C-alpha cells in the first residue's frame, strides 16, 4: 500500500520513518521545506533518541508528484491544514486521510477536500535537529477512529493502525476516537497557553495555587464542552496536569507554546482554546476563561506585527 505523510515535521517524520520499515508499504512525504526534502531524498530519514531508525522514502515539495495513495497522514501544524490538504487531495481521491495533529477542528478542514477521514490523536513528540534528522523525544500511543461526518471504513482504519503498529508506532483503532482527542486538547489548552502568557515552566505554573486554580477552571469548561457532545474522556486531564508537574516528568518543561512565543512563531491557540470556544459556542456551553485565554494569546501574536 502507498501512504503519504502530509507535513513531514517532527511528528510526521516519526510516522514516515516507522512506516518505511515495512516491506508492504511505500512511503511518500510531502513537505514545504526544500532542505528537509532534499536531505531525505539524498540520505534518507534518520531518527535518534527514544529510538534509532534509518529509513528510505520519497519526499517532495511538489504535490503533483504524488501517486494515488491508500492513506494520507496529516501532521502539519494545525494552521497549515487547509493549504496542505487542498494541494494533496488529488492523491487521496480513492484513499482515506488521517490526522495526527494537535487541537480540534482539523478533521473538519480535511473533510472539505477528501471523502474518507480518520480522526486521530498522537502522543509521541520530537524535534527536527537538521534537515533529514529528527530527535525522537517521547514515545507514546496513537488512537485512530472514523471521523463521524465523513467516516473512513473501520476496516481501513484498522489497516492503517496495524501498519503503524508494525512499523513501531503503537496505534489503536477505535470506533470513537473523540475521548483521547478531547482529553489531549483539554490538557493542552489548560497548560500550554498559561506557560506562554506567564513565561513559567509547567511545574512552576502548578505550584502557584491561584494559577493552578485557573488551570482547573479551563479544564472544567473543556470537560463541559466534551460532555455536551456525549464524549467520554479516557482519563481525567486534571490527573495528567498533576502528573506532568512532577520533577521527574515535566516540571522544567517549557510548553511548546511558550517556545513558540519566545521564537515569535504563530501558535496553535486557534485549535486548542479557540476550538473549545467554537464548539462551546455551537453547543451553548459557556467557555469564558478559554475565550479570554484565546484572545490574550492571539493578542500576543498580534503584538509581533507592531
Amino acid at each position, binding site marked *: 500500500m502507498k501512504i503519504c505523510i502530509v507535513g513531514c515535521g517532527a511528528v510526521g517524520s516519526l510516522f514516515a520513518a516507522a512506516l518505511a520499515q515495512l516491506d508492504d508499504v511505500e512511503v511518500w512525504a510531502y513537505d514545504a521545506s526544500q532542505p528537509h526534502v532534499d536531505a531525505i531524498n539524498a540520505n534518507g530519514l534518520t531518527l535518534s533518541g527514544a529510538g534509532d531508525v534509518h529509513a528510505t522514502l520519497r519526499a517532495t515539495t511538489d504535490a503533483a508528484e504524488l501517486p494515488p495513495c491508500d492513506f494520507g497522514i496529516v501532521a502539519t501544524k494545525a494552521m497549515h491544514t487547509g493549504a496542505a490538504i487542498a494541494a494533496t487531495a488529488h492523491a487521496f481521491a480513492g484513499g482515506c486521510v488521517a490526522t495526527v495533529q494537535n487541537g480540534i477542528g482539523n478533521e473538519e478542514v480535511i473533510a472539505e477536500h477528501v471523502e474518507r477521514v480518520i480522526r486521530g490523536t498522537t502522543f509521541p513528540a520530537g524535534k527536527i535537529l537538521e534537515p533529514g534528522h529528527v530527535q525522537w523525544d517521547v514515545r507514546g500511543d496513537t488512537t485512530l477512529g472514523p471521523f463521524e461526518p465523513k467516516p473512513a471504513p473501520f476496516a481501513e482504519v484498522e489497516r492503517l493502525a496495524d501498519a503503524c503498529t508494525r512499523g513501531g508506532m503503537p496505534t489503536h483503532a477505535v470506533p470513537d476516537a473523540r475521548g483521547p482527542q478531547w482529553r489531549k486538547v483539554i490538557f493542552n489548552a489548560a497548560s500550554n497557553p498559561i506557560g506562554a502568557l506567564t513565561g513559567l515552566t509547567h511545574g512552576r505554573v502548578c505550584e502557584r495555587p491561584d494559577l493552578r486554580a485557573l488551570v482547573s477552571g479551563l479544564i472544567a469548561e473543556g470537560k463541559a464542552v466534551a460532555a455536551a457532545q456525549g464524549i467520554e474522556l479516557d482519563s481525567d486531564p486534571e490527573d495528567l496536569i498533576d502528573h506532568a508537574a512532577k520533577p521527574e516528568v515535566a516540571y522544567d518543561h517549557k510548553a511548546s507554546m511558550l517556545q513558540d512565543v519566545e521564537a515569535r512563531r504563530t501558535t496553535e491557540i486557534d485549535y486548542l482554546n479557540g476550538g473549545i470556544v467554537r464548539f462551546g459556542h455551537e453547543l451553548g456551553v459557556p467557555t469564558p476563561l478559554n475565550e479570554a485565554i484565546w*484572545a490574550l494569546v492571539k493578542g500576543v501574536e498580534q503584538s509581533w506585527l507592531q
Partner: protein
Amino acid sequence: MTRVCIAGAGVIGSLLAGHLAQVCEVSVLTRRDAHADALNAEGQRVSGRSDLTSRVVASTDPAALPEPELVILACKGTDLESLAARLEGHFAGATVMTVQNGLGAEEIVGAHGAWPLLSSVTFMSGTRHSDTHVEYILDTATWIGPYRDTTPADAHRVADLIVASGLKAEAFDDLRPAQWSKLIFNATVNAVAALTELPHDFHFAQVEQLGDLGNLVRDLVDEGKAAAAAAGVELWEDPWEMNVLATRRGHRHYPSMLEDVEAHRPTEIETITGSLVREAQRAGVPVPLHTALYRLVKAKEASYSE
C-alpha cells in the same frame, strides 16, 4: 495657596512640579540624593505639550523642605506605603492629596497622619527623559474630590491652582464615580496590555469575531460595571466608551503596566486589578476574568527571575 510639596517625582510628579512652580513655590521630595541635587541645580524641565523650566527646591528629607500648604503624593501605588511612612510626623498643617491608580490610596496615607485628605485620579501622561526632564504627552485632566476633613471647595481650590499652572483639572463633589470609571478602564487595559504586550491600540476595540480581543475587553468592563453597581457607585463615564475613544486617538499609547513588564519591573497589578477584585469580593460580585488576569500578571512578574 502658595507652597506645594510634590512627594515622588516620577512622570506625574515631575509634570506637576514643573507646571505648578510657574504659579507658586514648589518643593520636591525625592527618593535619591542625586535626583534632588540635579533638580536643585538645573530645575525641572518640561517639553512636549509645554515648554518650560522651573526652579524647585528638592530634598530626600522632608524636614529640609519648607512647610507646604498642600502635599501631592505622586508616586506609584507600589511605593505609596513607604512614601507615606516617610511623611509621618511632618507637614502637620498641610492638606494631602493622592493621585494613585486603583482604590485605597487614601486609607494607606491616612494611617500615617491626621492630615486632611483629597482624592484624585489623573489621566495625563508623559515620558521621563532624565531626573530633570519630562515630556508632557497626553494633556488629559486630573480629577479631584474631597476625602477626609475636606470640602468640595477645597477640591475646587486645588483644581483652580492646577489649571492656572497650565495643566487640566476638574473638581468633583464626589470623586468615586470618576475613580471607579478610571479603575475599571485601567484594570482592563493595563492587564491586557501587560499580558499581550500590545500597546493600547485598535485590537482592544475589535469585536467582529469570536476570539477578538475587544470581546475580552468588553467582558472585563462588564464585570467591573457589575462590581461598581453592587458597591452603589454610578459610573461617571462608561469605561468601554473610554476604551473605544482612546484607541481612536490615532497614536499608540503604552500603558504603564506594559512598560513595567517590558522592563521586568514590578507592576501596579496589586493596586489596580487587585483593588478591583477585592472591592468586588466585598460587594459579593464574581469577577472571574479580572481574577484570572490578576493571577496571570502576578505569575508573569514571578517569571522575571527564571
